[in-house]
């Protein structure tokens, strides 16, 4: 792809573009999110208002956790019944993109998870058991969330105002699988819990 020297189709400002795999960028200067499709740039929607909150994760600041490192490049905020959480799209030490969910010190690194059986949203009730890839999980959270704000770059298209159904499935030995359902499709990721007290940053504000 050739997006060097890209400019926002809405306000004309230069778009920062750090990750080649990004498919969407929130403009720093105006309210727009911009889709990167083939050689064309297209306004996708608005980026919403991201209230400043204390966070261990800050866009563009690399973090170290045990033997891994993460560079957050995108931040999406979702609100749910109890409050809100952030999903950071980050590049890990191996150059792979990962999602990191951050909710008041509950931090999980999420990597894609293949589901071997078809799932039905109406069967995923709180407390229900689900067998995935030979492991038994229990539905520990079933809720829906709305995207409220976007910053930085993303590997997929996200829209402020879009609502997702999601489920947290807890398995043996602290295993966590998150299911998302939007537009008739499931997406699954496997989460690995991160101890916030072991996260190191060069100039952590925490």
């Amino acid at each position, binding site marked *: 792809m050739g997006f060097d020297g890209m400019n926002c189709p809405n306000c004309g400002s230069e778009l920062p573009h750090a990750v080649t795999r990004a498919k969407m960028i929130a403009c720093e200067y105006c309210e727009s999110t911009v889709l990167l499709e083939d050689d064309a740039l297209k306004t996708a929607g608005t980026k919403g208002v991201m209230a400043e909150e204390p966070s261990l994760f800050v866009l563009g600041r690399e973090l170290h956790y045990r033997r891994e490192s993460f560079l957050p490049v995108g931040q999406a905020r979702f609100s749910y019944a*109890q409050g809100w959480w952030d999903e950071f799209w980050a590049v890990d030490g191996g150059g792979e993109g990962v999602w990191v969910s951050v909710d008041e010190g*509950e931090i999980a690194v999420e990597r894609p998870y293949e589901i071997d059986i078809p799932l039905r949203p109406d069967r995923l009730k709180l407390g229900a058991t689900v067998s995935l890839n030979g492991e038994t999980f229990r539905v520990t959270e079933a809720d829906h969330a709305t995207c409220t704000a976007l910053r930085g770059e993303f590997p997929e298209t996200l829209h402020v105002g879009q609502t997702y159904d999601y489920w947290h499935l807890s398995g043996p030995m602290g295993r966590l699988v998150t299911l998302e359902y939007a537009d008739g499709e499931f997406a699954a990721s496997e989460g690995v819990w991160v*101890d916030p007290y072991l996260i190191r940053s060069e100039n952590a504000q925490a």
Partner: protein
Amino acid sequence: MTDGFDTNTARLASINCTSCGSPLPALAGHRAKSLICNYCGAVMDRHDEYRLLAQYRDMQRPDGPFAIGMSGDLFGVEHTIVGVVGINATIEGHGYAWTNYQLYSPTHGYSWMTWSDGHLTHSRKTRDLPETGGNFAYKAPLAAAGRMFKMYEEYVARISYLEGELTWVPALGDATRVIEAIDPPYGYAVALGDSETEFEFSTYLDRAETLAAFGVTDEFTRAHTVHAIQPFIPGAFHTALAKAGKVFAPIAAVIALILLAIGGGEKIAEATIADPFAGGSVVFPLDSSHRLVEVGITANVYNSWSWYDMELTNEDTDETIAEFDGGVEYYAGRDSDGAWTEGSQFAAFRFKPPAPGSYRLSVKAGDPKSSTVPLKVEVKRNVMITRYLFMLAGFALLMWISLWWRGARFESRRWGEDEDDDD
């Protein structure tokens, strides 16, 4: 949205108790599930419009240095005290009580600070599950969170007091079986509740530093026990003495042994005096006034004694340098305890000459009742002494051992194996 913790809404500073109307601080984040009123004991559901769930009146707030609303730095992270939980437990027949403070940090979430008999510890939920397990025997190893812990104790903790914002909906009297393992200054606990098992990682906190961080003046009783995960931290001076002792005890001992081996002196003259009453003398050259000279007298006295007058003269000037006397006595026998001996057939006299030169030592029996046995006179120069080095080696060893001893005593107090420490 069911409460005020929306992204775009300013945090509420306080909320009124839905039961008694008292204003209560609202400091925790949205994941805290309950709020317990410290005036009326109402337990409210924070996720359901502060609905009243239960009420516990007349709860006695447990002792402790902190109060809800206090903030302080722990591990470089600002934590705020949002809740208080009193715990009672019976361990090996003894009743114990401690106070857990629910901490909240917007970046690090929820954790605990515990005040127990004047000790402070921090605990947080961990997802690092035990890698080994099943064996809860005393001192059995437990690998978890990249460390090797030792099983410490097992008890049932019961909630005796509730206040403020907590991450779950508690009930007074709720019991949790806890298994604790330690690797000071860290601890690892498995808490087996009714519905779920949680794992906690604990760190011992420096009391003075922590109280200062939270702005609390330390006017509390000092800890008189050793906490399970309290590290043994001797004073810097004793640590330094022990380290130096460990290095210098063998060095001083080796040098002492070398001096012992080579420092017996070099024989420079010898004479046998057949008749002590007639006397005799021995002449010897001394090349240094700084090295020790030893005159050894051997006489085979047996159940008798000999006494000699000695005179040291400078051969070159014929000047008397010193006059002294001394002798030997030796007794032996047998009694109900077996054979015994007393005294010695040898006597040594050590001196340094006033100047290098040739010296004569004259020896003559100095008492008419003295034994008549012949005597042998032997003169050695460059005699060394080892007592300073042995004393130093002993002191160094003592410093080294004393620290080890203090550490061992501390460990035995930690494990409750010290008979003197029966708290």
